[in-house]
């Protein structure tokens, strides 16, 4: 069978382009199939959607040639303050503070807006040899033939490759067409996402307040006077808040946000995302692999979704590139299972870990509340333990794929 590409990637969000660039750099031929028309996304204006990139993710972006285009468009996270809070009562007596000065790697992470990150990917993909970006096309059928995989696009175009990769999110069509079932847990919570403008400079500090109804994250954006908000509430409360006009929304946010940054105003579009945890029963099949949310959708506490996705990207790229260099059949199940073994434990552990953190903090029981205030205070008092948490959050622990250590494969 003649192949149009070695790897067919379905999904042009962020993981798909990252994987495509990494594989093309490693000498494989790649097609990235994106349902959205590219120019529309590339010209997007400020809408407040942003990601907290862990250091390991930044290294991956640097290794695949995307980080340079983000120069001057990212906000280093210099400090993280986590605290237990209740609307209108101010912060609890114990704070958990993470300071970039304690990590030898420099800043603890970077905030980058979706529109800038995607534009940087687009630019890199357009000049990557061996990578074809197919925009504005959806997949209507896929087939695993003995000597490769075939996908049929809505336009009737048929693509043949050796491996099909689903980077198509938690409602992955690639997984569904392959008959891979998923397990899911709802939280009964919805994340409200927007951006605010504030009077005082955030000085690169990120805040995470653990409220009884769910966490509120305030993440610093470039320029010093904008922050991204990820605010979780029970489904009904979130729907009611989202239905308010901008003035009413701001009134609801203000007591939770506090006044430490002075006067605040809304600065971005308002989005809602229902919070749930989903896990695919398998990450691979012969000739097929799932990456990012298609494999494991996590609660967006601490913004780990994209960072986990980039870990998948680094691991799968390394497995496939090394297998191709050995002359192995890259679509063979035992090759793809190396990726699954590498990533499954890590992503399951993190998904369940964040689930329990959220359950512990989303509770107004006074005993639990006292306990976690004390817990945060103790962690804060022990620099070694705190650095461990920081390195975990920065994505610097576990067996790192080479790209996430900033090395070429």
């Amino acid at each position, binding site marked *: 069978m003649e192949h149009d590409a070695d790897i067919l990637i379905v999904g042009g969000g962020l993981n798909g382009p990252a994987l495509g660039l990494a594989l093309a750099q490693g000498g494989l031929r790649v097609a990235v199939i994106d349902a959205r028309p590219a120019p529309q996304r590339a010209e997007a204006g400020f809408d407040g959607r942003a990601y907290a990139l862990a250091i390991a993710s930044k290294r991956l972006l640097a290794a695949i040639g995307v980080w340079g285009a983000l120069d001057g468009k990212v906000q280093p996270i210099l400090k993280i303050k986590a605290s237990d809070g209740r609307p209108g009562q101010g912060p609890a007596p114990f704070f958990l503070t993470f300071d970039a000065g304690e990590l030898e790697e420099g800043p603890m992470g970077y905030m980058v807006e979706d529109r800038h990150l995607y534009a940087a990917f687009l630019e890199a993909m357009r000049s990557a040899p061996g990578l074809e970006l197919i925009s504005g096309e959806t997949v209507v059928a896929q087939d695993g033939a003995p000597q490769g995989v075939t996908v049929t696009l809505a336009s009737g175009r048929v693509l043949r490759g050796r491996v099909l990769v689903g980077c198509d999110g938690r409602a992955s069509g690639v997984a569904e067409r392959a008959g891979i079932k998923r397990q899911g847990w709802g939280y009964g919570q919805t994340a409200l996402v927007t951006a605010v403008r504030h009077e005082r400079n955030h000085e690169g500090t990120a805040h995470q307040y653990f409220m009884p109804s769910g966490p509120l994250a305030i993440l610093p954006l470039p320029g010093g006077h904008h922050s991204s908000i990820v605010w979780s509430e029970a489904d009904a409360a979130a729907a009611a808040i989202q239905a308010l006009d901008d003035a009413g929304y701001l009134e609801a946010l203000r007591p939770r946000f506090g006044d430490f940054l002075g006067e605040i105003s809304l600065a971005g579009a308002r989005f809602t995302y229902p919070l749930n945890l989903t896990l695919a029963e398998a990450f691979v099949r012969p000739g097929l692999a799932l990456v990012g949310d298609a494999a494991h959708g996590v609660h967006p506490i601490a913004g780990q979704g994209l960072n986990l996705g980039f870990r998948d990207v680094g691991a799968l790229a390394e497995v496939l590139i090394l297998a191709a260099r050995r002359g192995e*059949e890259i679509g063979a199940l035992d090759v793809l299972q190396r990726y699954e073994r590498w990533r499954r434990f890590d992503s399951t552990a993190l998904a369940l870990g964040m689930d329990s953190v959220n359950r512990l903090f989303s509770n107004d029981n006074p005993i639990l509340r006292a306990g976690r205030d004390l817990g945060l205070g103790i962690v804060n008092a022990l620099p070694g333990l705190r650095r461990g948490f920081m390195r975990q959050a920065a994505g610097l622990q576990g067996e790192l794929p080479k790209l996430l250590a900033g090395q070429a494969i």
Partner: protein
Amino acid sequence: MTTTIDPTEVAKFEAMAAEWWDPNGKFKPLHLMNPCRLDYITMQIAAEYDRNLVAPHPFEGLRILDIGCGGGLLSEPMARLGADVVGADAAARNIPVAQVHAEQSGLKIDYRVTTAEDLAATGAQFDVVLNMEVVEHVADPLAYLTACRQLLKPGGLMICSTLNRNPKSFMMAIVGAEWVMRWLPKGTHDWAKFITPEELYDLIRRAGLDPVDKQGMVFNPVSWRWSLSDRDLSVNYVTASVKR
């Protein structure tokens, strides 16, 4: 010469090929070790013949002989990298199995029922001879390695792997792999025929080749993976030699 397969036998050979290539089947230990062996083989060939492994078909133009090819676990990767491959096996039952699988993989490989000595007698010569986990099974290692030398073009490369002979290799390869894990049928290996790296280097030199590199292959039971090691040649190891 290619063996012609009787069409009525194809289904049987397909089933046997599926068995050979099942990573969790009868040949699981070979499948587990294969990426590590291939890492060594590809890096040595790329270094010797100045090939870039990132480019497509880096081994184009190289003639490679795989001795004891079995189901084609090494022959197929070499063909996929662009080499012109001859797979030789003394066991006649393996050849149609390897042929059926190569066809399924869309690869052209010249599989033959023959031995190194018989093939050498025909005057055939290769750029690379793969001699993996064979030398510990032959009756006369020196005669066998001499045939391997004859099969190489001047300047050609031989990759030879085997098992070291010491108490640890007895525990790992015989007690561990055959008795405890049952990865291999009892009696697969005769520990007395295992060869130390010094003995192998000596045999290779006496056969008229220059040994140029040796590395250990070490199984990590935690990561469940084999990897190459500069230091630990205590059980499995692999060598590279060049024809003077």
